[in-house]
């Protein structure tokens, strides 16, 4: 099934998305065709789902099976570059002179003074581009963007900003025309890598399990 939503009762315990490129190096980057199938680097995500009560575990098992292996897709909201106030304690920082190992001052203050979701406009860009010109929004390093390419939506992560330019990875897998870009709290489309993992059932609950995902498009 396409576009399944991640069940609200299933929490994500740990793990973060990364950009994987070793077997999808982009156009002409690999010798054998199988290394460039898929059009280039993409996001992979190995996440851990904590134990659930049996009722939810069975529903989660059905959710995984509804994806029918790697054929179906699911939507997941990407982690924030900046933490949400509602979820994050606001530290004031140590005051005891604690320093890092390089003698710089320790500062664990959390800043969330930028918007968590913005919409802007991205200028036209060619397939393979890793520099986007964005107006109307201010991405920060580490944030996820979602753009509409000729092949559908693609999520990219910002690794540098020199306004109005944002440097992103993975490279665009298809060209895009000037259009809306979403910054921050974006959802991306994934599919399972391989078969659905089994949900381990014990008396009264399930055990934790890991799930491997790959960006769908």
């Amino acid at each position: 099934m396409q576009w399944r939503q991640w069940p609200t009762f299933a929490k994500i315990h740990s793990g973060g998305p990364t950009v994987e490129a070793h077997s999808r190096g982009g156009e002409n980057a690999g010798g054998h065709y199988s290394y460039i199938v898929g059009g280039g680097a993409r996001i992979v995500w190995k996440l851990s789902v904590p134990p659930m009560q049996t009722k939810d575990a069975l529903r989660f098992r059905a959710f995984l099976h509804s994806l029918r292996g790697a054929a179906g897709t699911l939507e997941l909201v990407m982690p924030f570059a900046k933490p949400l106030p509602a979820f994050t304690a606001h530290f004031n920082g140590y005051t005891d002179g604690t320093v890092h190992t390089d003698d710089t001052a320790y500062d664990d203050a959390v800043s969330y003074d930028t918007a968590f979701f913005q919409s802007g406009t991205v200028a036209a860009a060619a397939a393979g581009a890793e520099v986007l010109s964005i107006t109307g929004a201010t991405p920060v390093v580490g944030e996820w963007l979602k753009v509409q390419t000729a092949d559908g939506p693609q999520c990219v992560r910002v690794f540098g900003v020199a306004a109005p330019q944002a440097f992103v990875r993975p490279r665009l897998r298809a060209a895009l025309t000037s259009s809306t870009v979403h910054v921050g709290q974006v959802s991306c489309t994934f599919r399972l890598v391989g078969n659905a993992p089994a949900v381990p059932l014990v008396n009264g609950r399930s055990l934790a399990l890991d799930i491997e995902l790959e960006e769908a498009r």
Partner: protein
Amino acid sequence: MALNQLPTFAHIAELQLSIALVERSVRRPSLKTRGPQATLTEMWRGQIAFADVSAANARVFASWAEWQDGRVQAFGVTLRQGFATHANNFAGTITVAALPGDSFVYLASSAGSQSLLSGTLLAIGAPGAAGYQVVELLDDATLNSAASLVPIAPRIRKQTPAGTAVAGGDVQAALRFTGDMPGVTQALFRGVTSFDVIEAVL
């Protein structure tokens, strides 16, 4: 033909069953958009770990496992409500013949309106009979005497005529070992074992 049953002293401690695309072609593994084609692509498979048994029962268990003759003999494992499936007392029938490869069935309840949660296991046909299959409901559904289309997994493997009985509650999975018989480890006063299993096509 009735399925061999697990010994009564065999209690499941941990169940890991999922649906695998076991017959999926390996010739084009990179083509992710290709959906399952063959009717045998989706099958239950996994591992069952059993609670410890006494040394005497361990010997019986080992002999029972040997009786299954590796992958040859199918056996029945009861998947109980509240553990492997949601508690329910569904009884009904298939109202429109299901065809091989179908990812849905038309179901009607014969016991009034019944609400089933996704993850509920349903047994289509009689355990051990040709075409018997255990499927999982993929979405919540409220079923009554009128036919409702419900998504299921695994896909239907053999043509199933209208009127075939479908039952919920405790369902019986028809399984086989994935290889030679598993060993039952025997310690001084007890025995432990776990089975790697795959669905038996009947």
